[in-house]
């Protein structure tokens, strides 16, 4: 019989607990990767290739080297050798770490416009940047393929793998489409995007013999650690990566991009600690972004709205030097109960930097087509969705772990006032403004990876949770403190969480909205172990610290998982078998309903979002403040996707022409209306504590909701993002 420790404190899970790092961040005490002072610190600056494919014929560093303060200029002539990156191996996910397959400065070949071709190391940042501007590079250029639109017809079917299925089908969707009494067919395009985290990528690196310390703004200290050990051919045990604070990532800091490698290389070559803080332009040129896409959506339905056919095909791009195909058709496998479904993804490889994950890869865009079909049928778009709301995962009949989309729509519609909408396009006005209301579904799969943790309780009542996870603004440490506090029955203030250091127990990267659930699962297991041990020490009625005091034990520590090589491997195998088992058994996801109101100026086509309500099913919410903030942030990013964001890649040269926040238009405050975020707060029975990650689902469907609202305001269907005003003239 196990004894139960008394609960002497109010549970903190679900409460709007202030973030534990809030004071450090607002006072400037929080130190980011480019803020670590080292004696003798040198500064690096990058020189980028200005051709998309070619070979360096000459590189003149004379003028650069003559700038006072320049220590060295590294080029392919004098750079230390790098080991090549490894091929993908599902048993070692760190093989996915490298942003590209290029051996930077170990080759005279240029694979994309922006590839670093030299690094200047100098005593000061200004000297480094001035010298970088003086490096003269000559090239022989080769024919290159950089125009996504032109290459679209040459796209090839995407291959699937364990983490990403390629195509999928159920029945014969094309045949059903041909026979359907009501049909719509539409082509959508979306542009490339960049993450634009507030902290540009930065690295500070210091070698001590073969031991390496790296401060890096990364989403994945563990991947980075093993990747650096591999590339620089040193024992992984000697490499330590620290990233206690990361100023946003959104996927852009999940992989390892040239800046990080080259800082470590520069430190190796000069024997000095080296810092590289990328300029915003450097980020655009050396870190991948979201792929553009072209999508065909065709829907067939009976006159009562029952979907008989759903066809969703797409073309996206990867770089010839790397990148994973983005699953832009993924939602079509899960959202609507169509009798026949065809999902196909084709890919083109271009001579551009690899694409990479960006907030909700694959799911972010959502589809607006169901709204078009609703108009075709003369039916309310929510009614049409509810009529086709599936009982089981449409593509393969798996059970949903937890699907509460009906409830989310009901809650959202009520809060937003959907019933006040008159469906006729152009029928609502406010003065001269055309008013439109739109709705779309949010959906993002839930994942869970392996995390190792230790939890220690001390006789003074304090609790220490140690886990090498990442905090890039989401509130991860706060959430884990709340979870541990409740699990041990102690006040949340007595829990300290250590994270962001590769010397801590192994944790998955911050990405895929899976970190909180992954770590929570292990924290809960560890706390349960600790409670069992405590119960053996104390008496019923003791609080945890009293139990230790009574036994004369200063502290008690338990751990979950092992960081040894064997421990990691067994953990990985255990994780993979669970992943495969779970994937067969359940479809787990966060979902929700996005409602928005827009105003369109009938003269100029200017669109302003004036109101937003979103209702989510994200299982149990751990922290009411940080979760809502995450969801709201996703919606803000969705507003940018809908109306203004676009990375301009010149199709003639493959060069990014708007590498900065002046001309890449993220939403400014004036573009963002008050955003009302609601959640059902019902635990998902298959997830630890019933929680589902909230990092990405907020962006999903947001752009589609805006496109639908614009149609409602104007009667115009704009299927090319961003919906800039010229498309509405």
């Amino acid at each position, binding site marked *: 019989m196990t004894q139960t420790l008394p609960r002497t404190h109010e549970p903190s899970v679900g409460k709007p607990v202030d973030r534990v790092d809030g004071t450090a961040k607002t006072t400037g005490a929080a130190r980011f990767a480019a803020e670590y002072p080292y004696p003798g610190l040198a500064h690096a600056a990058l020189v980028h290739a*200005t051709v998309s494919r070619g070979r360096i014929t000459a590189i003149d560093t004379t003028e650069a080297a003559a700038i006072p303060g320049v220590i060295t200029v590294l080029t392919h002539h004098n750079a230390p050798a790098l080991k090549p990156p490894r091929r993908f191996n599902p048993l070692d996910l760190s093989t996915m770490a490298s942003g590209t397959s290029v051996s930077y400065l170990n080759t005279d070949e240029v694979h994309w416009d922006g590839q670093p071709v030299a690094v200047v190391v100098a005593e000061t940042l200004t000297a480094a940047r001035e010298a970088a501007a003086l490096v003269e590079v000559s090239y022989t250029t080769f024919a290159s393929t950089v125009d996504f639109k032109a290459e679209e017809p040459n796209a090839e079917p995407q291959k699937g793998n364990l983490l990403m299925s390629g195509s999928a089908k159920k029945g014969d969707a094309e045949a059903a489409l041909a026979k359907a009494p009501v049909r719509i067919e539409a082509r959508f395009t979306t542009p490339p995007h960049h993450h634009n985290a507030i902290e540009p990528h930065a690295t500070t690196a210091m070698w001590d013999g073969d031991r390496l310390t790296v401060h890096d703004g990364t989403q994945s200290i563990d991947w980075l650690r093993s990747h650096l050990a591999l590339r620089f051919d040193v024992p992984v045990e000697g490499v330590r990566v620290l990233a206690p604070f990361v100023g946003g990532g959104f996927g852009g800091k999940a992989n390892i991009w040239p800046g990080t490698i080259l800082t470590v290389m520069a430190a190796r070559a000069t024997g000095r600690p080296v810092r590289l803080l990328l300029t915003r332009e450097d980020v655009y040129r050396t870190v991948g972004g979201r792929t553009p896409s072209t999508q065909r959506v065709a829907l067939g339905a009976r006159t009562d709205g029952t979907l008989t056919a759903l066809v969703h095909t797409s073309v996206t791009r990867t770089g010839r030097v790397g990148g994973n195909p983005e699953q832009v058709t993924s939602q079509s496998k899960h959202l609507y109960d169509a009798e026949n479904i065809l999902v196909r993804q084709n890919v083109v490889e271009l001579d551009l930097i690899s694409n990479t994950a960006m907030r909700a890869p694959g799911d972010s865009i959502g589809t607006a087509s169901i709204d078009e079909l609703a108009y075709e049928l003369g039916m309310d778009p929510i009614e049409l969705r509810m009529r086709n709301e599936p009982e089981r995962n449409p593509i393969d009949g798996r059970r949903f772990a937890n699907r509460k989309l009906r409830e989310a729509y009901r809650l959202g519609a009520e809060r937003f006032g959907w019933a006040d909408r008159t469906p006729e396009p152009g029928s609502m006005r406010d003065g001269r403004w055309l008013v439109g209301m739109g709705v779309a579904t949010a959906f993002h799969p839930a994942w869970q990876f392996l995390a190792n943790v230790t939890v220690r309780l001390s006789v003074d009542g304090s609790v220490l949770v140690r886990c090498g996870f990442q905090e890039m603004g989401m509130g991860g440490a706060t959430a884990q403190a709340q979870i541990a506090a409740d699990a041990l029955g102690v006040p949340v203030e007595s829990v300290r969480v250590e994270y962001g250091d590769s010397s801590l127990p192994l944790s998955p990267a911050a990405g895929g909205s899976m970190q909180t659930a992954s770590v929570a699962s292990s924290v809960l297991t560890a706390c349960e172990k600790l409670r069992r041990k405590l119960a053996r020490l104390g008496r019923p009625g003791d609080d945890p610290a009293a139990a230790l005091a009574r036994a004369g034990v200063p502290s008690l520590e338990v751990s979950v998982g092992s960081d040894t090589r064997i421990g990691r491997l067994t953990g990985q195998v255990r994780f993979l078998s669970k992943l495969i088992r779970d994937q067969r058994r359940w479809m787990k996801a966060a979902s929700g309903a996005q409602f928005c109101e827009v105003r369109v100026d009938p*003269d100029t086509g200017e669109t302003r979002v004036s109101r937003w309500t979103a209702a989510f099913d994200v299982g149990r919410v751990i922290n009411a403040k940080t979760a809502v903030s995450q969801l709201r942030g996703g919606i803000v990013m969705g507003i940018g996707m809908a109306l203004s964001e676009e990375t301009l890649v010149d199709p003639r040269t493959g060069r990014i022409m708007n590498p900065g926040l002046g001309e890449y238009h993220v939403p400014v405050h004036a573009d963002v209306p008050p955003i009302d975020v609601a959640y059902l707060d019902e635990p998902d029975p298959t997830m630890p504590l019933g929680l589902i990650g909230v990092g990405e689902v907020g962006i999903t469907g947001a752009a589609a909701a805006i496109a639908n609202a614009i149609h409602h305001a104007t009667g115009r269907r704009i299927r090319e993002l961003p919906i800039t005003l010229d498309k509405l003239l």
Partner: protein
Amino acid sequence: MRTFSYVSAPDVETALRAVAGEPNAKFLGGGTNLVDLMRENIERPDVVVDISRLPLTEVEELPGGGVRIGALVRNSALAAHPLIRTRYPVLSQAILCGASAQLRNMATVGGNLLQRTRCLYFYDGASACNKREPGSGCAAIGGFTRNHGVLGVSEHCIATHPSDLCVALAALDAEVEVESTRGTRRLPLSEFHRLPGSTPHVETALAPDELITAVELPAPVTERSRYRKVRDRASYAFALVSVAAALDVGDGTVTAVRLALGGVAPKPWRAVEAERVLLGAPATEEAFRTAAEAELAAATGQDGNTFKIELARRTIVATLRDLLSDGSAA
């Protein structure tokens, strides 16, 4: 780091002497454009003469109802000035549509006149640009042209002047006062900026040794004026099209009109043709449209900016219509 000499000028005379005989000297006012361009290696002056302490910071009323604005008056101070807000609302509004509060607190009137284009290819050292490197070609033609011009452009350059403030000044018949060791001269704003022709690197009529000391506005033809800026997001973006307009109507007829366009030309574009058509015409939406079409008849677009011709037409009409209803409501 690149070195340059720095002179902090306590008075106009010192400033003028510091640049005399220095062909590659730059005056530093608020620094909101020059410093950026130096960071981008586009401007590489040998001498930087800091004029931010010069006593050119007054806004003074002139006999006859005009106003004299010192070249170093900060944008935010000018926008908030009671004389400007009451007599020249178009100017106050134009300033507040530009940049951000922080930049407006730094940026000066003289510097605003000398702002350089935001053409993506001008800013990119790897691209051909006749403005940055005369004779190298124009990579913008055939490229991304969303913020490029449709009026007054040439086959050598299609860049636009990015200012909002100058568009209002153009509509208000501003004059620019410039000084050098050779003396003082005045020129109308309409002659201050040059069209690119075959020399897009020559952007103004200012000689290298001349300093802008003031901008003067005559009494307004009417206090009924406004600025309308159309852009890709609600704030902190350059104009796709902007319209500065002043309109006076008597007995349903246009008795006075001033109209200038931004975002569509290499210089703040005074719409003289539209004004000619409007003066004495009935103050109706139809007349506004006819005038706008007359002004835009010569406009030519690229793939990425032809929409601006239609957008400019609509924005002119909407702005005049709003002014008309302002008047009837008053």
